[in-house]
């Protein structure tokens, strides 16, 4: 079978009868057989289930049934999103033995659209981390350099798509957990606007920040998959009833009339020269495509990391209180119920999760609340106001996604230095913006560099327009040699 460029092309071939779902799946499984032992993206593969889905699709096509817009696309799902009947581990010991009794809304929508679910991918435990090294279950490697991390927390999903083991994958993004690994692995990673995609069936980390989004091999695939996933859901009260436009019709070939905002410091102070250069060149191409480049200021963005670690940890400490050894997952044997909570949580959570629960509990505790959570929530307002002012002057903001390319496993042992990975991505979550990372080149070692584009809440059409025009202009072919 000839190499397939992206899911969009695959669905066209499938619809035209040029390939069967089963043949497509078998091709994906062969890539997995060859590459998964090196990359380690998956925590769980469902070969039989995937095969059954593929055969069902082929049978229905034969009967002349109308199939969904993602028919025959093999996809991977981050292991903090439920797929009914399969384990959801969150890459933690805490959820030992847990089987999801229901489908997440995104899972149900993808299945209904004809996507074939291959399995569940690795992550930093409970989505807390930027390298996948906090997984309690497995180490995932970067397909471009197996000594390096894939980024995180959705590192397994990013690596699976980068290695072409899946044509699409789901991740979740609380402070950059889709965009940073997308940047490190040379794929497109989309964090939709807050509330754009239902979170029913996603294990909650920080509820005012979490969003589910796709990893894809092209911008049009991101648009295609968002068209399937977006929209109100009665099972998630925070999902938006804002109408879902046809995102595929938002794709553009030029950027005439578009104003691209840049914060000069994000480029000038970027610690990695190759990252700064590739991103500058990408902005130059946007200008050549007709965009107007506007210098903007986001004065409070420098406080984003501090605000984020208070807000996200506070919300996490509350959300993770449900892991108490009573209703699901791990339970330590103790003589009393109270001891049970302490022992189960002490044994079940890994070091980073414990750190964040501690930080969050402290930030919400009597005496510290106003100075930590209260103050951070007020600075958050100032950051939201910064973006409002910026989006009055520009349509899209361009910056590096991460301050550097993929780093070596074990290189960042200090928690704070790991947190700095997300310095450019965090503000979008705090303000509810939509944002994506797209590959714009490679550094001197051949490691992918990602450009982040951010738009106002629910301006995904503008985001896809900007990204698609740049993507076709750059015409990159970044694929790992494995």
């Amino acid at each position: 079978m000839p190499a397939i460029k992206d899911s969009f092309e695959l669905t066209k071939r499938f619809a035209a009868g040029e390939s069967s779902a089963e043949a497509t799946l078998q091709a994906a499984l062969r890539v997995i057989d060859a590459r998964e032992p090196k990359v380690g993206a998956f925590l769980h593969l469902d070969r039989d289930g995937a095969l059954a889905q593929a055969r069902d699709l082929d049978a229905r096509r034969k009967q002349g049934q109308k199939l969904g817009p993602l028919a025959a696309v093999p996809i991977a799902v981050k292991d903090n999103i439920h797929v009914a009947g399969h384990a959801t581990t969150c890459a933690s010991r805490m959820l030992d033995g847990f089987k999801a009794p229901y489908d997440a809304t995104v899972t149900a929508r993808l299945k209904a659209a004809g996507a074939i679910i291959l399995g569940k991918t690795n992550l930093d435990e409970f989505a807390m981390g930027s390298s996948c090294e906090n997984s309690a279950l497995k180490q995932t490697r970067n397909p471009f350099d197996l000594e390096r991390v894939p980024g995180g927390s959705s590192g397994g999903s990013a690596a699976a798509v980068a290695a072409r083991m899946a044509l699409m994958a789901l991740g979740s993004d609380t402070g950059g957990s889709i965009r940073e690994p997308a940047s490190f692995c040379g794929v497109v990673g989309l964090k939709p606007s807050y509330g754009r995609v239902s979170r029913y069936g996603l294990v909650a980390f920080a509820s005012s920040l979490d969003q589910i989004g796709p990893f894809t091999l092209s911008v049009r695939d991101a648009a295609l998959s968002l068209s399937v996933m977006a929209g109100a859901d009665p099972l998630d009260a925070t999902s938006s009833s804002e109408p879902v436009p046809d995102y595929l019709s938002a794709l553009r070939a030029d950027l005439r009339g578009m104003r691209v905002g840049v914060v000069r410091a994000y480029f000038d102070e970027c610690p990695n020269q190759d990252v700064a250069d590739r991103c500058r060149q990408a902005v130059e191409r946007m200008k050549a495509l007709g965009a107007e480049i506007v210098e903007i200021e986001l004065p409070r963005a420098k406080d984003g990391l501090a605000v984020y670690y208070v807000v996200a940890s506070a919300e996490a400490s509350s959300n993770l209180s449900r892991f108490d050894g009573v209703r699901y997952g791990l339970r330590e044997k103790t003589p009393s119920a109270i001891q049970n909570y302490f022992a189960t949580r002490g044994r079940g959570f890994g070091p980073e999760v414990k750190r964040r629960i501690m930080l969050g509990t402290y930030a919400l505790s009597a005496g510290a609340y106003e100075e930590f959570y209260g103050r951070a929530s007020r600075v958050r307002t100032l950051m939201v106001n910064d973006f409002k002012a910026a989006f009055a002057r520009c349509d899209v903001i361009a910056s590096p996604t991460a301050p550097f390319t993929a780093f070596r496993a074990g290189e960042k042992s200090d928690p704070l230095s790991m947190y700095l990975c997300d310095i450019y991505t965090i503000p979008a979550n705090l303000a509810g913006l939509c944002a994506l990372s797209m590959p714009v080149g490679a550094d001197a070692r051949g490691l992918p560099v990602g450009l982040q584009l951010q738009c106002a809440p629910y301006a995904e059409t503008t985001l896809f327009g900007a990204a698609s025009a740049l993507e076709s202009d750059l015409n990159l072919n970044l694929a790992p040699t494995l």
Partner: protein
Amino acid sequence: MDEHTVRHVAKLARLELDEAEIRRMAGELAKITGYIEQLRAVNVEHVAPTVHPFFDLNAWREDEVKPSFSRAEAVSNAPEQEEGFFRVPPVIE
């Protein structure tokens, strides 16, 4: 952030930490809270907090009975269950 505070917060969080973890956590959290202290330099007087990106958004629905999990499904993941109940160690001695 000293070891005494770490012990207190761990108790609030129902989190068992051993002595080595308490020592390490005290150092790490001191560093992180030290970094967060940069927020003290920001003037937040008369600034309302943001606790949710779109706080004015509210979702209402009719209070209707709909199909949901069976009892067996609801307890299917319990570490211990008995006759459709979650079984736990004694709460009161």
